[in-house]
């Protein structure tokens, strides 16, 4: 496998009595955007945290470019990640937030200004991050992920809080990353965000991979995306109002 992959193999993770991951396996190939879709609590974030060495799996492996993340010397030069855009010290400016990350990866300060410009943060970079809108925080998070110019990118719900203009920008940005040959894993709880972005989709529910394939293959007949999603996740949602259609039963 090349440097530009994510390989997740048989991940199990239990939190108390809850089995959060129940044998999750999938692969993200170079030059593709892979959508990682599932309802809230399906295990998307837990899987991403395990890939990034933040949580430990009870069983199974997660490799990035063939190696465990925790063994990488300057990991953010290999894997850029955005987990929680709100995770900022409010009194620190966006630029200084990027600066400390750059220092940790031994990247020059000039790289900070490059990525700030890349995500269109502009003059806001010098303001305190506490005053940022959610969309600006997402852009700052993307900038942080791009600091090390990594071949692999992992983003948890990057469309959250973005205005329509931001969503259009984000889609183009993700396509461009894949076109540059990078492997991109993007989670979303809305399948509708992914057409035109994701080449490949991994659907997860209750800690299991429910579907894994090219997006067009998942849509059968004249189903809308919402129908597809509901069909795939029906058995995996812990609670759904009885007023909603119970497709797939």
């Amino acid at each position, binding site marked *: 496998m090349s440097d530009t992959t994510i390989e997740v193999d048989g991940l199990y993770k239990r939190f108390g009595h809850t089995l959060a991951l129940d044998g999750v396996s999938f692969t993200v190939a170079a030059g593709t955007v892979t959508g990682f879709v599932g309802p809230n609590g399906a295990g998307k974030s837990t899987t991403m*945290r395990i890939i*990034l*060495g*933040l*949580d*430990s799996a009870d069983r199974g492996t997660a490799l990035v470019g063939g190696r465990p*993340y*925790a*063994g*990488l*010397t*300057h*990991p*953010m030069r290999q894997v850029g*990640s955005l*987990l*929680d855009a*709100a*995770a*900022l*010290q*409010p*009194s*620190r*400016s966006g630029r*200084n*937030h990027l*600066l*400390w*990350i750059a*220092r*940790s*990866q*031994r990247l020059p300060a000039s790289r900070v200004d490059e990525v700030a410009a890349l995500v269109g943060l502009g003059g806001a970079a010098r303001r305190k991050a506490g005053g940022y809108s959610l969309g600006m925080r997402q852009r700052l998070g993307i900038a*942080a992920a791009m600091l090390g110019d990594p071949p692999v990118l992992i983003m948890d719900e990057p469309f959250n809080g973005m205005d329509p203009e931001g969503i259009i920008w984000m889609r183009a940005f993700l396509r461009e990353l894949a076109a540059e040959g990078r492997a991109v894993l993007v989670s979303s709880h809305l399948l509708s965000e992914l057409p035109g972005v994701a080449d490949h989709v991994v659907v997860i529910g209750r800690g299991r991979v429910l579907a894994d394939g090219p997006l067009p293959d998942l849509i059968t007949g004249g189903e809308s995306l919402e129908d597809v999603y509901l069909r795939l996740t029906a058995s995996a949602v812990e609670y759904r109002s009885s007023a909603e259609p119970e497709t797939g039963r």
Partner: protein
Amino acid sequence: MTALLASRGRSGLRDATRAEWTKFRTVRGWRVALALAAGLLVLFSYLQAHGKHTGYCTTPSPTSCVGGHPYVPDGAGGGAVADAYELASRSLAGDGTITARITSFSGRIWAGPSNEAPSLAHTRPGLAAWSKAGLMVTSSTRQGAAYAAVMATGAHGVRFQYDYTHDAPGLAGAVSPVAARWLRLTRTGDTITGYDSSDGTTWHRIGSARLVGLPSTVRVGLFTTSPNTYGGQATRATAAFDHIALRPSGDGPSAGAAATWRATSTGIGPRDFYTALGRGGERRHGETILVTGSGDIALAVADAGPDTASDSLLFGLVVAMIVLIVVAAMFATSEYRRGLILTTLAATPRRGRVLAAKAVVIGACGFAVGAVASAVAVPFAEHVMRANGNYIYPAGPLTVMRVIAGCGLLVALSAVAVLGLGTILRRSPVAILAGVVVFILPAFTGPGVLGGPGGGGSAVRWLYTVTPAAGFSVLGLLPRSPLVSFPYTMGNGYYPLPPWAGLLVLCAYVGTALAAAMMVLRRRDA
């Protein structure tokens, strides 16, 4: 290969440390807190020093009191000394030998109330353990002069001592008419040698001293002095000398008891610090000279009533420590409060390295605050205290540097420990509370709470020996001397542990907190 891995490990720590330093310095509140801590340390030191005034009274009635402190001489060894004694002496040009026998040595101990100036009105018989009578060679009778002496003592047998701190034992046992002690001092150039004998025939050499720069003409004679007891009562002693012979080398005539011996009382004037009992003097009975004296010839310990350069530091130091404890707790817990720990650990997956880098940053900040502020505060407070008439115990530049570095280390170590607590607890109010309880509170339950000066004995000793408060030992500046019988207690300004030992006790606590934090951080999901 191993070297390569090691260098990679070091550079990894360097990257993490630069990242943590960037994090620290880009939060304005934390920078302000550091400046505040340093400012408060200096401010409180000034206030402490400013509130301290000394005056003393030279006569009880009519009362005559002046501002300032009594005279404390500097001894030949460089420290403050007590130099108060009675001496019957002759001058000796060039080399020579003095011999005498002591046949009796007795004294009186002040038995009146301790808050009254001692007088001969209320006394009981007895000697202090370090009452001294014997032969002395001294460059002059000025206080603090270089000397060497061989002497009988109250409870420590015959001793050869010189320049206030040097001591060698001779014959054991107390002096009495049936156990008289023969003593001899010989001067040869700069070297003085002391001998003793129980019969005047068989002599034992006890020791010798090189008194560099001793003038060719010196004072040689019979002295007596008697220090305060362990309990602080003033004493006075009288010794009977006979078989007195001062022989210059060469063909000069020998001087005996019948010759003229000049009586000098040194260091018992109204402006001298050492508390004497009555006045000294000499009497003759035929071939015997009785010398009566009070005082001490030894290092001045806390009985000189001194302040030290670090006295005014304590409160401000504790305030600075609390500020740094708050900053350290926030430096650790802000990661969790905002979820920033995800980014931090994604950037540096080796979690021990993250904690080490944070410890280096907060430790360096704490050290800088403590050391820089105390480097300003110590000379400043000393100046203010001197201007208020206080006596400051002399401390050499190395000792002052130790106190300054010690202040830096105290602030740094408590901050690093709380960084560990904050990492474990993840919530700053709890971490701050734990930090203050463990690292500050023991110091405040010290002498003031557990008993008055000198009181609270074992509890206070225990606090400053096994709790983190032991770290404050680095502030200790008062000297101890085995030649001075004195209660070296917290109440009198003496920490139970030596400076660096106390700091090691604190280090053990800090190391435990850091190790626990390291373990928790490694095992826990981020």
